[in-house]
């Protein structure tokens, strides 16, 4: 019984972390129609930004405050240089270009930071842990990360549902020409959305860095699981990504304990089951 409760906690916490990584992907994919394979690279960028920034400013939350605008600017530049040429093209060319970006970012990472794994410090005021059983403790920082993820999810839903920018984004998603006819510059709008997606991935990478450690290829795992989340939740749906990520987190945690032989396929079996029942994902439009 105790093990089950602990696994629920583990599953929710892991799910919230992958929600944060996947939310940027579902925005870019759902609103702009871009299949962005380099999304994992932006997560990696965040992790390495955390490494560099904490070595300068010390605290991970100051690093987060500095890293998000940096990532936003970087995302806007990438959109201007590469992505904007893809809107009128088909998915295959998008996949090719963004795959090429993965290779470039990996090589840049190797040149700038080298191949050794690194560690990012947890701030001292969050370095304690909560006792769960006589030998097992739960790090406070993980709980803080989970709380940040929940706050961010609420903030995103608020922006998209209640604000003017959110309405413009939703309108641009359903009918780009009409939005332009109404005098809204959809090029700027898309640049904003892409940069926001990059910032979200980088933010996930930054706050996860003290838990995950920082090493080459850290983004690739995140990329695959993020696509699974997007497919389960429904493309473009933040709410879907939230529910999908929690489902995956729980399935993964319980799969490892109760079906260890099938642990690596539990998540994909869940995806297949969702697709059979609802081909558009849990919250997607078919």
């Amino acid at each position, binding site marked *: 019984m*105790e*093990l089950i409760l*602990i*696994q629920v906690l*583990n599953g929710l*916490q*892991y799910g919230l972390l992958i929600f944060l990584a996947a939310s940027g992907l579902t925005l870019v994919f759902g609103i702009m129609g871009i299949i962005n394979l380099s999304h994992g690279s932006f997560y990696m960028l965040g992790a390495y930004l955390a490494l560099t920034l904490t070595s300068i400013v010390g605290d991970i939350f100051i690093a987060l405050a500095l890293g998000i605008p940096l990532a936003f600017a970087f995302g806007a530049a990438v959109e201007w240089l590469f992505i904007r040429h893809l809107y009128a093209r088909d998915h295959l060319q998008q996949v090719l270009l963004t*795959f090429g970006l*993965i*290779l470039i970012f*990996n*090589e840049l990472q*190797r040149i700038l930071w*080298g*191949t*050794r*794994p*690194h*560690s990012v410090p947890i701030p001292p005021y969050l370095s304690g*842990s909560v*006792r*769960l*059983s006589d*030998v*097992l*403790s*739960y*790090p406070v*920082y*993980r709980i803080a990360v989970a709380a940040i993820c929940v706050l961010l999810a609420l903030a995103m839903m608020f922006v998209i549902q209640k604000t003017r920018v959110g309405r413009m984004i939703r309108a641009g998603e359903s009918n780009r020409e009409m939005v332009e006819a109404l005098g809204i510059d959809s090029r700027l709008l898309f640049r904003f959305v892409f940069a926001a997606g990059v910032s979200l991935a980088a933010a996930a990478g930054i706050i996860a860095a003290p*838990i*995950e*450690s*920082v*090493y*080459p*290829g*850290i983004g*690739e*795992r995140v990329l695959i699981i993020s696509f699974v989340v997007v497919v389960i939740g429904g493309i473009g749906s933040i709410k879907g990504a939230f529910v999908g990520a929690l489902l995956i987190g729980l399935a*993964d*945690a*319980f799969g*490892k*304990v109760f079906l*260890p032989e099938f*642990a*690596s396929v539990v998540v994909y079996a869940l995806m297949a089951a969702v697709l059979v029942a609802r081909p558009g994902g849990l919250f997607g439009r078919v």
Partner: protein
Amino acid sequence: MTSHSQTGLSRRRLVQLAAGAGVAGMLPLARPAIAQAKPIKVGLLLPYSGTYAQLGEAITRAMELYVKQNGGAVAGRAVTFVKLDDESEPPKAPELTTKLVQGEKVDVLVGTVHSGVAMAMSKIAREDGLPTLIPNAGADQLTRSLCAKNIFRTSFGNGQVGLATGRSMLEAGIKKAVSFTWKYAAGDESVGGFRESFVAGGGQVVKDITVPFPSVEFQSALAEIASLKPDAVYSFFAGGGALKFIKDYAAAGLNKSIPLWGAGFLTDGVEQAAGSAGDGVKTVLHYADDLDNPENKAFRAAFEAAYKTPADVYAVQGWDTMQLLALGLNAVGGDVAKRDALFGAMSKASFKSPRGPFRLSAANNPIQNFYLRELKGGKNVLVKTVATDFADPGTGCRLAS
């Protein structure tokens, strides 16, 4: 997906002679009898990109350092290296190996880090019969059922390290252990070796826990370990995953009640990054940074002077790869065509390595010492030698001893 840096063969080719030739030119009487015009071509199939890039680089650097220290020549013949990035991708291994063997016509083949790549490479090497040295990959079969007279390993077998660690854990009074590793070939072999010696000595393995390779989500496993309450945990992880595991283990508070043990790869290369979270982690390996022997001190000093970075176990393996090859080549006067004599000399080789005494088993796997190390303040500290002249059983190898 890993990074795919394109490796034009000709661009990767490095002629190492500049310095060596200058030195040789100042020695007019240098071995006239065996002076041969053509250099010995050594093909390096190693990872130069991706997760294992650091390992491939360390091995290459140590090999180049050896040649440089010997005036650019071995057994009177100049040595050139042809480097090819194997990207740690087994599907690409046959093509890349063929490129070195057939295309470049290398005299000697050296590779690699990833066991899957090494398996594919050794298949071709076995058929071709050219001298082949494995500077890292630990797949048991390479020096067990798939051993060959032309294939030599200068590193370790996965099972061999596990066997030595199991013994050491028993010595420390541990009776009940849980094993924890990635679910893949190297992890299975490592745990297999550990289980064999641990159970034979009266220990009990309560449970084998695995996570899919290369997942680094360890929380569920940590909860399970906590509920099983063993005397200790035996683990096999490496690189970034190892670092995360050490930190998660400490963050869960398990390091206070259940000692963490492992094959040495758990800590090598991540000592500093682990920081205080790694304090008390005990590992067993065929090398320790602070081994007190003259070879180790000289090697570490030379390596650090040349590359401004400390040597590690992988560099030692690269160094010994060249030591072993040089010993064989000296025995045949640098004539690589005399294969039987070359292999005979190499298999009987015995020399002083930075890791301690080095010789080969009948299956061409190192017979070597194993050391218990403990991580303290970001440094691996030698505790004691736990096994001297420790050989892998070489089960299934049909080479005559």
